[in-house]
């Protein structure tokens, strides 16, 4: 990879600007192994937080497919690890780091990092966790750099970015994010394609009868129709990623386990705010969240942006029974009627996708998938877990994580 920090003839500030410009193409260039190793260390370094106990890896546990390991809807951060967050922690595997947010030709919002697409690339994304009050909660870049300068990989940092790198806090902070981006963008553990399904695609293993049935139900437009948003077929010879990186509004019920929801006026509206600010006027997008990959989904313990569900079966039941049995998911209004889509201000309820299968059904109708069919779909989704070992028939995303050499 082109390493702008080694450019001898440019003033630091210009280098920073250049780096920012080149960050967009970071994903494409294979990174320097030294840089990846450094990034892996920063990713795991709990000393870089205000609490001294939280690293990127605390929420994005490499052994859990770089997603949260626990079943809390949201994680807590801050100096005492007591400040609650707002969204469930996504897996960092199979991110499309090459796709800053844009509107496709037909108007479909697509790409970007975070559940609302507000970060254009990994370097930009890595800024927030270091400062957010509910995450690592550092006061500023200088606070982070101060800790970097005392880490056990400090010499390596200097070797890569120059002996006096810590003299300029902004530049050093940028360098740290640059290394993090190189790690997340280039280390094989983020894209191992080592699931049973991948072996099946490569004709190295067979899927069982329930797994195959589940796969067909997942794809069928008249059943799950899941592949409409979570594509399951190879594109241009690349294995499927089970997301089209688009955004949709599923009308997920409000999760009162998130402390912020105690405030009745609080709504997490995804694309139109509050974390994302540039699309606030696009009220038609309020409530839309990014389609996540379903690779490793069976290793998760909470589901959807607000972690509303804690089992895969309940998640899929919600998909197929949201409209046939709304009373199961939403609270009753004072007049006794069901208040559907209760995690949206009433004016935005019409933004919810009610036209596409499987949620195009009527109340009292039969769900698109029966209980037995849901079991088959879960059997199939379980083949998407990384680190499959054909000898034991088990999968564990931790198997893909290489130990960090010095």
């Amino acid at each position, binding site marked *: 990879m082109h390493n702008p920090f080694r450019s001898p003839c440019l003033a630091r500030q210009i280098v920073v600007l250049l780096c920012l410009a080149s960050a967009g193409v970071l994903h494409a260039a294979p990174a320097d192994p030294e840089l990846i190793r450094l990034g892996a260390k920063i990713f795991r370094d709990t000393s870089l937080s205000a609490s001294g106990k939280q690293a990127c890896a605390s929420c994005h546990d490499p052994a859990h497919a770089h997603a949260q390991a626990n079943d809390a809807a949201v994680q807590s951060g801050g100096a005492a690890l007591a400040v609650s967050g707002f969204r469930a922690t996504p897996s960092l595997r199979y991110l499309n780091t090459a796709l800053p947010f844009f509107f496709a030709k037909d108007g479909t919002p697509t790409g970007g990092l975070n559940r609302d697409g507000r970060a254009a690339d990994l370097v930009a994304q890595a800024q927030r966790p270091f400062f957010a009050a509910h995450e690592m909660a550092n006061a500023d870049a200088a606070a982070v750099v101060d800790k970097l300068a005392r880490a056990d990989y400090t010499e390596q940092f200097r070797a890569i970015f120059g002996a006096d790198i810590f003299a300029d806090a902004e530049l050093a902070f940028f360098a740290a994010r640059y290394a993090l981006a190189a790690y997340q963008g280039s280390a094989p553990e983020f894209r191992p394609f080592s699931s049973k399904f991948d072996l099946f695609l490569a004709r190295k293993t067979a899927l069982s009868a329930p797994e*195959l049935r589940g796969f*067909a*139900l997942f794809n069928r437009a008249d059943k799950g129709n899941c592949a409409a948003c979570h594509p399951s*077929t190879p594109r241009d010879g690349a294995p499927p990623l089970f997301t089209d990186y688009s955004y949709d509004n599923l009308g997920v019920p409000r999760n009162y386990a998130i402390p912020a929801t105690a405030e009745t006026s609080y709504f997490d509206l995804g694309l139109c705010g509050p974390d994302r600010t540039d699309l606030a006027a696009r009220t038609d997008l309020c409530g839309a969240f990014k389609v996540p990959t379903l690779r490793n989904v069976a290793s998760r313990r909470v589901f959807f942006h607000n972690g509303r569900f804690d089992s895969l079966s309940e998640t899929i039941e919600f998909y197929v029974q949201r409209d046939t049995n709304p009373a199961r998911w939403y609270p009753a209004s004072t007049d006794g009627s069901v208040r559907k889509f209760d995690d949206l201000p009433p004016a935005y309820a019409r933004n919810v996708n009610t036209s596409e299968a499987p949620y195009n059904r009527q109340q009292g109708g039969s769900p698109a998938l029966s209980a037995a069919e849901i079991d088959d779909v879960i059997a199939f989704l379980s083949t998407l877990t990384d680190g499959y070992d054909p000898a034991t028939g088990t999968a564990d995303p931790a198997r893909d994580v290489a130990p960090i050499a010095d």
Partner: protein
Amino acid sequence: MMQRTSLSLATLLFCGALAAPAHADDAALRAEVEALRAEVAALKAEVHGMHLQTASPATAANATATTSAPVAATNSAAPTSGARDVAASSSSNNASGGAAGSTSFWGYGELNYNHPTARAADAQADLRRAVLGFNHVFDDATRVYGELEWEHAIASADDKGESEIEQLYVEHALGANYGVRAGLMLVPLGLLNEHHEPVNYYGVERNYVETAIIPSTWREGGVALYGNTESGLSWNLGIGTGPNLGKWDATASEGRESPLGSIHQELQLAKARDPSIYAAANWQGVPGLLLGGGVFTGKIGQGQTAPPVEKSRLTLGEVHARWQPGPFDLSALYVRGEISHTQDANLTFLGQPTPVPKEFWGGYVQGAWRAVQWGESTLAPFLRYEAFNTASAYAAQPQGLGAMPLPTERVWTAGLNYFLNSNVVFKFDYQHFNNADEELGYGKRFNLGVGYQF
């Protein structure tokens, strides 16, 4: 593997039907034939050894048509022998076929209107295509031939139109009646693929069999040997690129509309690991009659493993006949295709709407009657019956998970071609489908069109 029995059966049927002597004692046709013979002889004498340019710019079949002049008109739906095939080959001998270094241009175009009767809101008018072709003669033996096409009026990143090169090849005569071509060439199968100018077929739209099954305009890059004999047999053998099954999209409808049309590569950065070969022949030894057929085969996985298609082979075989007794113009065609080793790929497409078919086929019979002629103009009503199936069989899948073969689509087309002259045609027809399928655009409709060539 091709279904040899059905192919040869079909051949037999055609031959049987046509075995009765062609009542080609049609005075007009004979006179025309004589005139053409004389013209060709004169030209032959005049332009020493310019065998190359006596061929129609378009095809080997036409090369035969001109050298064995008796049936020059056969390849044209136009009522007179003046369709571009012949007009071009005789006049272009003067215009372009002459001097080394000369370049001639030609072209055609068509504008269509489709009106589905049940869904008038889907009625559509389209500048279907405008084509400019050129023929540049380097010397006695060598020329370069190209066809540039624009579809749907406007081609840009934000528009639906396409701009494409349909043919571009260098041709070199090796002897009096055989030669070699290299470049992007039309695959010489069927009646329409090489003769796709609007005056050369009946009906506003090209027939379904030769668009859904033979994906007209089908072209591949490669090398071909072509030639013809005094007895009226023309032949063409080629080796080159083939379709790429690796780009099969099981989630979209294109593969159901035309299995090969959805995976042909048009020499656009074509994946070219596996060569395909083809052989085709046409016999025009009896005035008014054309009998022909061909086979195309090759591995089409192009080494792609996602989806796992690297072992898949396409074999497509086709027979056709055309007979023009008196004012009548009768034709028939049968084509069948098979793709092998589709099971593994389809296992990765379980539940998707468009798995890869194992078999697909189509056939049609068509009769036209040049009922009224006055001056340059001709009014020709026609009737065509087509049956085709783009997925008549799929490879077996685990029980309960396999896809059902598609129903066979049967289309009647009745209409009129009004040739203002041999190069300008106005068309009207009505089409009836036995299975309406909105996604694929199958449903009763009437069509209007205008086409020209020069």
